[in-house]
Every structure is written in structure tokens, then in C-alpha cells.
């Protein structure tokens, strides 16, 4: 009979209306500023620069190799290399970024920079409340704003951070072992001391930088 | 002034306005508007005579007015239908241009 389908539809909306008072399933809205959804580990919003230790400037893992700048699809990363060098986490002297800016308004949160970074220096943040009143300067984050500690990285992406740390430790151990071997070799040779340790360590850093194009 | 005379005068004036509109305007729809005004003036007369007449309980004037309204509604429907139909044929509602019997 005419109207049957309409009545069925009315019953369905009535069920949902009543259901919204009793079942969470039928009222899934989260009242945002007061309530928040549980943080999602895989979430990616905006990149940040990881640093080790307490001093952000000294601990930055970034060596300004500019791979991410080249690979970034919307080209939102601006890097200037430093003139001098500073020691990195294994103690080798490295170039560091004198300037490292990311434009929030251009970034599309694609995570390509994270994937291409050979130094585990750039990671994705889960912080999403990036709105500001200043649409130019406020949306251009410099390296101070971007730098976040490894502990923070552990807090937001525990699984990934653990993997990264394991990999770095492994590398560090390898480098140390190599340095030790070199030192032993040098000691055995009883010639010039720590000088040969630097070139082999610097090499892997430069190779991807050249090949990333 | 006598109230009945007042109503009658208003009706006469309205009738004259309607007549003038029907006779002087070019647009067929406006001619119909004029005719409607004339019919309404007649209705006003009927009701006024019913109200001030000697046998209001007989309802004659009111009945006339009711029938007149019904007829006027029918007239408007048919008249406007004709105007639309003519417009579809000749693309105009200007009566000075609709001067042929052939469609």
C-alpha cells in the first residue's frame, strides 16, 4: 500500500532518535574542545626535528643534507646550511642547519620527508592545533619551533621511536666498533691518532645527499 | 450623507474606473483587470442594496453577489486562459496588434 516505505523510514528515524539518548553508537560526536579522542599513534600532522639530549640546538640530528627539501612535494621546507660544523650524536663533526623553516600553510602532511631522511632527524608530530592569528609569520615555523626532544617523540610514537632508537644504537655501536678497531689499528700501527676515524663516518652522510636527486 | 448612497457612489466610481481601464489599456490582461473591477463594483451594489433593502432576510442580494463571484472567477480563468493561448500564437498581448480572426 502507498506509504508503507515512508512509514518504514519514519520508524527508522524514530529508532535513531531514541537510540541517540541511550547508545553511544548512535551519538558518536565528540565535543571537541572539552573532550578529545584518544591520541592515535599513527597520526601524522606536521613534521618536527628530533634532538637528543637537553640542548635543542646542539642535539639536532639534522645535518642539513637537503634531501627532504628536494623531495618535499609542495616544496614547503627551506634549509640553509651552516658554515661551520658541530659534532653529531656519534661525535663526528657535521654541518648543521643554520636555518630550517617549514611553512604550515603549504605542508600537506604527506610524510615523504620522514621517509627520505637518512638520519631519522625529521618525524611527524600529532599536534594539530596549529592555527594562529598571523597568517604569514605565524605559519612559518623555524627550527626552534620545530625542534622537539627524542622523549617527546617517544611519547607520541612509542613503537616507531623504539625502532628508530634501536637502529641508531646499532649504527652507533657499529661506528664505535669501527672507531675502536681503527683506534686499535692505529695504536697497532703506532702512527697518527684519531685522524683516520672521520672520513669513513662522514661518507654515508654525503652519499645519499648526492644521490637523492 | 445617506450611507446607501455613499456605497452606491463608490461602486459607480469603481465601475467607471474599471470601464476606463478596459477601454483605454492596450494589454489584454489589463482589460480583464478592468472587467473584474466592474464586476466587483456591481457586487458592492448588490450587497449594499441587500443590507439597506427592506427584506434582508430574503438574502436575494447576497445570493446574487455569491453567484456573481463564482461567475467572475470562471470568467477570469477562461479569459486568462484565452490570453495565454493568444500569446502563444502571436507572441503579444497587445490588443492593438491582435486584429486578425485567424490564429
Amino acid at each position, binding site marked *: 500500500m*502507498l*506509504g*508503507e*516505505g*515512508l512509514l*518504514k*523510514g519514519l*520508524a*527508522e*528515524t524514530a529508532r*535513531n532518535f531514541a537510540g541517540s539518548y541511550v547508545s553511544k553508537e*548512535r551519538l*558518536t560526536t565528540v565535543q571537541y574542545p572539552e573532550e578529545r579522542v584518544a591520541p*592515535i*599513534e*599513527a*597520526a*601524522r600532522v606536521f613534521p618536527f626535528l628530533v634532538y637528543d639530549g637537553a640542548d635543542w640546538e646542539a642535539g639536532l640530528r639534522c645535518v642539513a643534507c637537503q*634531501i627532504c627539501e628536494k*623531495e*618535499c*612535494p609542495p616544496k614547503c621546507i627551506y634549509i640553509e646550511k651552516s658554515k661551520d660544523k658541530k659534532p653529531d650524536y656519534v661525535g663526528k663533526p657535521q654541518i648543521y642547519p643554520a636555518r630550517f623553516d617549514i611553512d604550515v600553510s603549504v605542508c*600537506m*602532511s*604527506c*610524510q*615523504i620527508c620522514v*621517509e*627520505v631522511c*637518512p638520519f631519522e632527524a625529521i618525524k*611527524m608530530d600529532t599536534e594539530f592545533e596549529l592555527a594562529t592569528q598571523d597568517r604569514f609569520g605565524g605559519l612559518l615555523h623555524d627550527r626552534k619551533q620545530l625542534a622537539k626532544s627524542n622523549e617527546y617523540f617517544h611519547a607520541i610514537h612509542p613503537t616507531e621511536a623504539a625502532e628508530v632508537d634501536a637502529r641508531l644504537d646499532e649504527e652507533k655501536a657499529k661506528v664505535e666498533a669501527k672507531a675502536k678497531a681503527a683506534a686499535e689499528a692505529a695504536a697497532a700501527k703506532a702512527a697518527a691518532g684519531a685522524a683516520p676515524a672521520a672520513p669513513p663516518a662522514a661518507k654515508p652522510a654525503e652519499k*645519499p645527499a648526492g*644521490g*637523492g*636527486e | 450623507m445617506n450611507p446607501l448612497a455613499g456605497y452606491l457612489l463608490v461602486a459607480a466610481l469603481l465601475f467607471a474606473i474599471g470601464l476606463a481601464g478596459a477601454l483605454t489599456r492596450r494589454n489584454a490582461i489589463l482589460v480583464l483587470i478592468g472587467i473584474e473591477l466592474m464586476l466587483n463594483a456591481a457586487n458592492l451594489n448588490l450587497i449594499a442594496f441587500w443590507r439597506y433593502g427592506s427584506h434582508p432576510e430574503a438574502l436575494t442580494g447576497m445570493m446574487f453577489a455569491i453567484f456573481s463571484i463564482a461567475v467572475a472567477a470562471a470568467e477570469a480563468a477562461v479569459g486568462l486562459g484565452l490570453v495565454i493561448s493568444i500569446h502563444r*500564437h*502571436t*507572441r*503579444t498581448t497587445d490588443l492593438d*496588434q491582435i486584429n486578425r480572426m485567424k490564429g
Partner: protein
Amino acid sequence: MSASETRMVGSGGAPAMQAEVELLEVSMGPHHPSTHGVFRMDVALDGEKVVKLKPVFGYLHRNHEKLGEDHSYLASMPYTDRLDYICSLTNNWAYALAVEKLAGQEVPERAEYLRVITAELTRAQNHILAVGFLLQDMGASGTPLMYGFREREKILDLFEALTGSRMMCNYMRFGGCRVDASPAWLDGARKVVAGLPGFTDELEALVCTNEILMARTQGVGILRPELAVSAGVTGPMLRASGVNYDIRKVDRYGIYDRFSFKVPLGDHWDVYDRFMIRLLELRESIKILEQALKDIPGGPVIDPKAKIRNFRPKAGEAYGRIEAPKGELGFYLISDGGPNPYRYRVRPPSFVNLTILEDMCLGHNVADVVLILGSVDIVLGEVDR
């Protein structure tokens, strides 16, 4: 008297009558509420009947193909998310498939399963949304759309847990997928998939036997199979016109030959068929998902030989296509051996499906135009690229 003169010459024939009728030219869009984005239709109306309809698009043109030729193969991947922004995962897959063909890469089995799972979840949420928006265009105050959103949120939550983003997933890589799905994620996916049939029943109870829906959609916007085939229409649109063509069955790309599913076909070729075909395909997708989530093997998710940096496929050309929720989505790539494609071309289903809009709309009401457009299920990001 010139008007009546023309009439005599035309002697009541159809063309003369047409020419004589004063048409009301209405520009629907680009900010019209029902055009699903920035899209414009120049509609000529006789009363409320459509006598001419000219689709105008390009308001969202973002130079996608040229950007693809300018960026490395990897850097184009997040851009494909933005083609059909409702279904980024299928876009990823089509692009990954083309590049894998070009580079001759193998995909591990687990990655193939994950691709099927994510693609079918994408299809499910796209069809939910398409049906919801169609009803929204019909003026259903958003109720079916909101139910659709409720269910789609669950799927999007899955996407976010897996890929890190709800809509711009950027998940697939050449030779596999970016990250592995945890057992917890797979359990969550099983739970969501188990809830989908219930939702489909609810939606069907809400609208499918609704007399108003039937009156509005049945017999409206008929797309004849011959026209559909000759215009290159694909996807649910084509199947609603009764043509049995599903690239999952035709190409058997990926591992689709392992799953048993059927292809629903329409016999009346109208908007109602397009609407129902989507709902039936949703049910078939659920079947595929159940099978895939049951059989998913272990193993790596990306070919260990796959390169992230410095990826240069050998010179040559390749066309990779998949059955995206909206139809055949293909990427055509020419490589000259460099880090960027020499030529990068997208075959977007929405764009091709939109070309027959006028043929479907002529003779119908303005209100039907909105419906027919809704039944095509376009996403302007894909149409304009």
C-alpha cells in the same frame, strides 16, 4: 507580425516550436549547493524542463599532470590522494600499479592483501557517501547522509590508525605498502566490517522502499548501454546500464581472482539503478573484505629491493588501471630513465562519466538534473585535476 510569420513558415514543426519558446537561462554553480564542489552547468530551461545543458568545469584545476612530470615518482604519490579525495587509497593503488608495471617490481603477498582490504574499505565508504549525497540532493535533510557519515567515520578511523591520515592516506609505495597493519588493526577492521551489513540494512529500510525515492529516481536519467559504452563510461554507472564490465573481473589485477564476489547489473538504466547498484556493490565489497581479512598471510609488506630514494625506473611506458569506486582509474606513465616521469597522464573516471551529463538530463526537470548529477557521483578534484 514577424513572430506569427515565423510560425507560419515553421508550420508547427518541432524545431520551429523549439526556437520560438523563450528560454530561461540559469547558471547552476559554481557556488550552487548541489554541484558537489565548484562545478557549473549552464542550463537553458523551458518552464522547468531542460532543453540545453552545458557543463563547465576547470574551477579546481591544479595542474596535476604537469606537476607529476615535474616531481619524482615518489613525490607524486601524495598528490594522487588529492585526485578523488574521497578515495585516496584506490588512487594510490592505481598509481603504484602503473609504476610497478613500469619498473617491473613485485609486490609481497601481504601487501596485496592490505591493498585489497584498504581498497574495498575505500569502495565501501565511497558508496555510502555517494548514496548519502544523492539523497541529500533529493532533499532528505541529511539524515541518510549523516548515517553514512557515522559509518564512514569508523572506516576513516581505521585509515587513520593504519596510514596516519583519514583522507589523504598516501599509503602505498612502489613494491608494497608503507607500513604494516598490526593484528589489533586487523581485528578492528574485522569489527567494522562485521557492522557494515547492519548499516546497509538500516539504510535500505530508511530509503529503499520509500515511495518518494522511487518516484524521484525511477525512469529518470536513463543512460542507454550503447551510449554508455561509446562514451567510455565505467564503474557503477556502466554496470547500472546493464553492461557487465568490472576491471576486478576483467584484469584480475592484484589478487582479485582469489575472492568470490558477484557483479550486480541494472536493467532499467536509471538513477534508481545507479543508486541500488552502489548499495549492492557495498554488500559485495563486504564479502571481499570478509574473505581478505580471514586469509591475510604474514610476511613483509614491501619488496625489500624497493627503493625509496633515488628511484629511477628504466625507460619505457606503462598503463596501470584499477576498478576505483567511481570507475576505471588509470595512470599512464612514460619514463625516460630519469627520476621524473617524462609523461604523466590520469584517466579519471568522474571526468569521463560526466561527459554524458547532457544526454541524461535533456527533457528532464531542473530538480532531476541535480539528482542525475548526484547519481554520476563526481568528485571535482578528479574531474578538474
